[in-house]
């Protein structure tokens, strides 16, 4: 029996070595392990064997060897095949660029969203407001008396129904105070209009963003704190602020707020004319007359308001030199602003 097995073993090893593919391997498997294969016939010959136990053990060892060798060979072949497939695959080139048109946002939308997001996280409601307003909204409710120069024809676009195009986002203050009452935290970005001739630095149509915070005992000290915090959030860095007196009829006291220069950080550079400060936004404690006109109890509440020049902010942010680019509709300019 052992001789028979040895003979079969050597012939098996020869055949296995010469097997080139899955089909050859399957033929070998059937020849040795199939129902009528060599192992089966060995098992059949067991009845006549002298030492059945030893013979049986030998057959089993042989069977296991055959099985193991076939499985191992199968895996080798599979690996070889996979490697051949990988090697023959087509090689790609990611460096080749095709023209692909992407959409774009208007830069004002992007600048506005960034600022809105900063304020939203601090609990400010974002309000939208009309562009056509009344004299009351734009001036009277804001403590701007009848003869104030801001009402002159040369500054304000008047409509034939007696309304006007808002000259400042503050025009929404009164309505928003009346809508929500105090306490109140709101920002309201919007488009403003001034009747003046345009050049690279001046536009008759531009965006501002007004903000208000009204609560019990809001103070100048709070105003400085909030402006610093909010502007640091808007510019995504720690900035210094300073207040200077500034006159606006709807605030008292009124301030011009400067921020430490974004380019030099306050050291002084050409873009801040060596001063280290950039004039950024007018602000102030809301004038008691304005609060009262908005239906707010001035004994209980105080508040501050500020106005950010969004158009100017977008110009600073993107390095846009000519303000007229915003309303040009020129896609060569505008299509560059892909996303936030």
């Amino acid at each position, binding site marked *: 029996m052992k001789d028979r097995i040895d003979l079969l073993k050597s012939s098996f090893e020869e055949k296995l070595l010469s097997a080139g593919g899955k089909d050859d391997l399957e033929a070998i498997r059937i020849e040795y392990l199939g129902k009528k294969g060599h192992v089966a016939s060995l098992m059949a010959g067991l009845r006549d064997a002298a030492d059945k136990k030893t013979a049986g053990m030998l057959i089993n060892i042989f069977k296991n060897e055959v099985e193991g060798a076939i499985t191992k060979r199968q895996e080798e072949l599979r690996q070889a095949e996979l490697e051949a497939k990988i090697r023959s695959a087509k090689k790609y080139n990611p460096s080749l660029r095709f023209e692909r048109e992407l959409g774009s946002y208007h830069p004002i939308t992007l600048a506005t969203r960034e600022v809105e997001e900063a304020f939203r996280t601090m609990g400010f409601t974002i309000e939208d407001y009309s562009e056509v307003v009344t004299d009351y909204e734009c001036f009277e409710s804001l403590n701007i008396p009848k003869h104030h120069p801001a009402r002159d024809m040369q500054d304000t676009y008047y409509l034939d129904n007696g309304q006007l195009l808002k000259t400042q986002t503050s025009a929404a203050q009164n309505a928003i105070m009346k809508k929500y009452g105090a306490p109140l935290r709101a920002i309201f970005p919007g488009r403003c209009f001034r009747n003046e001739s345009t050049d690279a630095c001046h536009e008759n149509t531009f965006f501002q963003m007004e903000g208000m915070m009204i609560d019990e005992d809001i103070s100048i*000290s709070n105003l400085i704190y909030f402006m610093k915090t909010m502007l640091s959030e808007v510019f995504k860095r720690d900035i210094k602020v300073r207040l200077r007196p500034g006159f606006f009829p709807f605030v008292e006291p009124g301030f011009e707020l400067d921020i430490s220069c974004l380019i030099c950080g306050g050291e002084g550079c050409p873009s801040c004319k060596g001063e280290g400060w950039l004039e950024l936004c007018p602000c102030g404690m809301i004038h008691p007359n304005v609060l009262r006109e908005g239906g707010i109890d001035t004994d209980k509440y105080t508040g501050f308001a500020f106005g950010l020049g969004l158009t100017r902010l977008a110009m600073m942010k993107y390095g846009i030199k000519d303000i007229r680019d915003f309303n040009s509709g020129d896609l060569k300019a*505008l299509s560059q602003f892909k996303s936030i």
Partner: protein
Amino acid sequence: MLLSMNWISDFVDLSGLDKVALIKNFTLSTAEVEDIIVKGEDTYGVIAAKIVSVENHPNSKKLHLLKVDTGSGVIDVVCGAPNVREGMHVALATEGGSVSGNKIGAATIAGYASHGMCCSEAELGISDDNSGIIDLDETIPLGTDLKTVYDIDDIIFEVDNKSLTNRPDLWGHYGIAREFSTITGRALKAPRVLDTEAFSTLPEVALSVKATDLVWRYTAIKVENITRKVSPVNMRIRLYYCGSRAINLLADLTNYVMLELGQPMHAFDLARVDKIEVQTFDKPFTFTTLDGIERKMDDTMLMITSGDEPVAIAGVMGGDSSKIEDTTTSLLLESATFDGVSVRKTTTKLGLRTDASMRYEKMLDPELCRFATERLLSLLLECDGGVRVISAFTDCYVKRYPKIELEFDKAYVDRYTGIDIPTETITTTLNGLGFGVDVKGESFKVTVPSFRATKDVTIKADVIEEISRIYGYDNFDVRTSVSPIYPVREQTQKSYEDRMKDVLVASYRMHEVHSYIWSDTAKDKELNIKTPEGVRIINAQTPDHQYIRVSMIPTLLSFAKSNRAYAQEFGIFEIGHTVDGLLENGLCNERKKLGAVLFSRVSCEEALFKKALSTVEELFSDVLHKSPEYRASLGRFGFEHPMNTYEILLDGKAVGFIAPAHPEVCSAVDKKCAVVFFEIDTGLVSLIEKERTVYQAPSKFPEIDIDLTFRVTLAEVNFPALTKLAGECAGELLRSVAVQDIYETDDGCSLTLRFTFASDERTLSKGELEPITREITERFDTLGVKFNA
């Protein structure tokens, strides 16, 4: 406004302080300083000298060879000035010196050595007079450094006029000095004046104010025996440094007092005016101002008249006929307070803004009139000792501002500032600024000085500003407020608009643009669009921009045209404001709208229309989870294609429209292109209820798709009606109906619809659906949609 530190130092001793730092501090405490100019820095080594002899230069007609006595020797100087003469005292820039930055050294001019330079006023930078060299006062000892007698050194700073709008008291050096006095804590010194009480026994000036509504106060006084014509050099230097040109002594003095106290004054030649009246005329007339320009006047403009002859536009400019000339020896001096609004209206109408009118516009303090007159007289007598006052100070005080007293306590200041400013600091600050302060414990009673009481300081909060700005905002302790939290209010329309922008940019690769709120009639015309004539701007910069846009589409079409070389196909959009007529209450019906224009030179119009449709569907599916319906329309504006304009409906309400451009418009955009646009009223959309997502567990049983093809006239197919009808036939087994294919040939159109069926309880068989599909085809037939077996 230009301000001189020398001048300010007349009223507050700033010695030992860093003046430039002080000026910078002024920005933080009072008003924005725009520029600081150091005068005289680059001029030195200029002395008083005397020309001993003058010889003609042999090789030049212009040049002279001078021998000049410097007080310590005689030197050679070559000089080109036309007014040189022997014995003349001159300002000599010596070797090693500098004149306005030009270094003076020994030089050879046209072959002759020169060791110095005789200077003109312009060369020294103290006036614009370059007509000749300075004819120096002979009493100045030779060799004297000119800077010790002339105020060439000064620091001038410029304050933004706009930042002084609310501060009439800061339109003169004295008021500015008061700020410096408070900032530095140094005393304020009053200017010298001549008490006019002394002349009260003299006859009054014949004077009457008729237009009492436009005048607060009018005062006048007469002066004679004026002999001096030219102002002292240092006065002229100050005027020049502060942007005013020296003219003659009297004109210079009125300017000087105005720049010093902020009170405009006018000097009439007494020989040329008689009885002074202040009035308006009931008819238009012409008037020649002292600059020689004839101006058209109207019945609102306040005039000063001599009898009934106009001699000055009140608060703006004097007249040519009564102006001070070199021959003037006596004058009538006006010091008045006119109504600021009236002055501003007059200057606006005339297009004539003067230093005087700018000050009047700010609401001057009538109390200044007498002070200014007395100051001017004092200065005049200092310059011209023989002058005689020949009338009483004649005062027509028409109206007075009420005295303002404000009461508050320290708690109010603490609450408003958020910090603790000591009572003493509050008192010192307010006193320094001219306020009367009566403190009892922590209560303040504050009297506003007349020069702050014309409109600037009227309420308690105004006083807070005075206290806190002088305290210094940089010194504030900065802290957060204690506020309760509450939720941020939802803004549906705005959030929809933001979503819509995202969909259009990210999913449809469109470009957002911005345009003006007004229509552009000229550009509309180029596009064969008749500009909708809605609400009008009455003061538009051009008639082409007078109408507020009713629709977003025309400007977008003109952008499509101007961008047609940008790409073969692109889409642009804008969310903006339009005005669609007036509401019942007379206010504008302002509508916020999304306008979008699709342009293509490669796609056909129908393909573009489908793309626009799918865009619209996506927008509504995104914000409302709803699909729109469409209703054929002829178009409202005329720029739409009349055959294919559709109103966009949501829940049966029209929220916008979609259309290809009218062929005339389309070809004006580009000869070979397709243009489709849509417009959606975002305000209306925000009112539509959002479809809530109702979850359905997925059916365990397979869906069955059945495609049915019909012969149709495509434009007449009412798809929503068909869907509804199919639903009626199939009940809840029908899950969806969608267009699967459209096949158009010359003899008609085949429309294949896919009906998807499913049941939650069982697997459906085609057999059991057969009666349902048969019913669908039969019912469709009645609508002209024939089943194509």
